[in-house]
């Protein structure tokens, strides 16, 4: 579904991604962990061309996303992206945030878009906040609306860029719960997160990145048994038990 082939990226003279290769198959959940600045966010941003790459290829459904024949706007509808800072549109209500893409990109009628949006809000438990403006929602609620906004476009993959890092601890749970339900429903996901407990529970495979390299990967069970002396083991002990 998504394949990274020797991906290299530089910011000026700084190499932020170095020879990353890996594959995410349909229905899989990959969790990217690693210290800040290790390139995790940059890597998932390359999937929808939010970042360009200087070497290698990124393929979505076997199509090179850098190729001219790929309609990037259509690709982005198929690949949902959830940001750390939610990035809700502050001038639109929670519902308006979700219906915008449905009416303007999908051509749904207002009524149909509203119905679809309410379904997604129900999935994240926020139907009663439909008409609220984002400025009046809590961080956790904003992030759940952002997730609903992505899901409304019927993506085949969801990318999460540290979706809980900006949240107060008591709000992390509600967002992770929404993500777990999504994973349980068979959604293909790549999640950048520091929530190790979530990774252990949901990930088919954990990728550990450091300094732009993918240095370890394995299922949570494999990593748990082999992590004692590894770099990942040291990292996991530092970020705490999950």
């Amino acid at each position, binding site marked *: 579904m998504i394949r990274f082939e020797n991906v290299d990226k530089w910011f000026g003279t700084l190499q932020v991604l170095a020879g990353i290769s890996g594959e995410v198959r349909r229905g899989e959940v990959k969790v990217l962990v690693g210290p800040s600045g290790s390139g995790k966010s940059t890597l998932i941003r390359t999937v*929808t061309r*939010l970042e360009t790459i200087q070497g290698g290829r990124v393929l979505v459904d076997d199509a090179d996303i850098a190729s001219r024949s790929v309609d990037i*706007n*259509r690709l*982005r*509808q198929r690949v*949902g*992206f959830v*940001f750390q*800072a939610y*990035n*809700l*549109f*502050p*001038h639109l209500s929670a519902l308006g945030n979700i219906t*915008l*893409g449905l009416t*303007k*990109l999908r051509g749904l009628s207002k009524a149909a878009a509203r119905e679809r949006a309410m379904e997604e809000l129900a999935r994240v438990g926020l139907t009663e906040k439909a008409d609220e*403006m984002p*400025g*009046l*929602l*809590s961080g956790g609620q904003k992030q759940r609306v952002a997730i609903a*906004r*992505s899901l409304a*476009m019927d993506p085949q993959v969801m990318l999460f860029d540290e979706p809980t890092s900006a949240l107060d601890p008591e709000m992390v749970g509600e967002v992770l719960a929404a993500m777990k339900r999504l994973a349980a429903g068979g959604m293909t996901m790549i999640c950048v997160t520091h929530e190790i407990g979530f990774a252990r529970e949901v990930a088919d495979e954990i990728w550990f990145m450091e300094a732009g390299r993918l240095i370890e990967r394995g299922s949570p069970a494999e990593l748990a048994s082999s992590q004692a002396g590894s770099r990942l083991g040291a990292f996991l002990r530092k970020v705490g038990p999950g």
Partner: protein
Amino acid sequence: MGYVFDIGSVLTGKYLDWFLIGLATTLALTAVAWCLAMAMGIILTLVRMIPFPPLGWFVALYVEYHRNVPLLVQIFVWYFGVPSLLPRPARQWINAHHGEFLLAAIALGLAAAAYVAEDIRSGIRSIPKAQYESARSIGFGYLGAMGYVVLPQALRIAVPPLINQTLLLFKNTSLAMAIGVGELTYRTREVESYTFKTFEAFAVATALYLAISFGIMALGSWSGQRLRLETR
């Protein structure tokens, strides 16, 4: 001295009509020029964002010309200069259709557009890039992201300075008298020269200008409150 202040003498009969006709013309000129300024201001803003340097230079030149050449000169250029470049039928059409009003509206509108473009640009600059990125991530192209996400927010922020520009535009319409547009200042001069009541005539004009200006300012503060986005 012995000057007797008699406001009633200029507020009767045809003089009152002249003031009202002048006021109506001023408001019409403001409205037409305002629409042009908004449309052109938005177009200039969008053109400037196209990543092709010559277009950016063109907009910069446009803005600098309109901000640095006296407005009266710009009006003369449109009234005396531009028609002389047009073919004869076009000139005749202009003369037959209140050309002075139309050309004054164009001159005032295009000049105000330069300021509008600057105000909208500052509005756009104040919107975090993440908003644009977020819209693109849903699948909007450049125009969709700008049109549905960035511009609506930027325009909100630009409303107070734009109301200010509206006020300036309204006051600047008085310059159109120089090419014979029968707006409020022009009509006031007429009343004055018929009645010799100089002070009274301009007192009436002053009161009318002030009333409309206060109206625009009130609209500004009302819309400013309405458009503010609530946050926790």
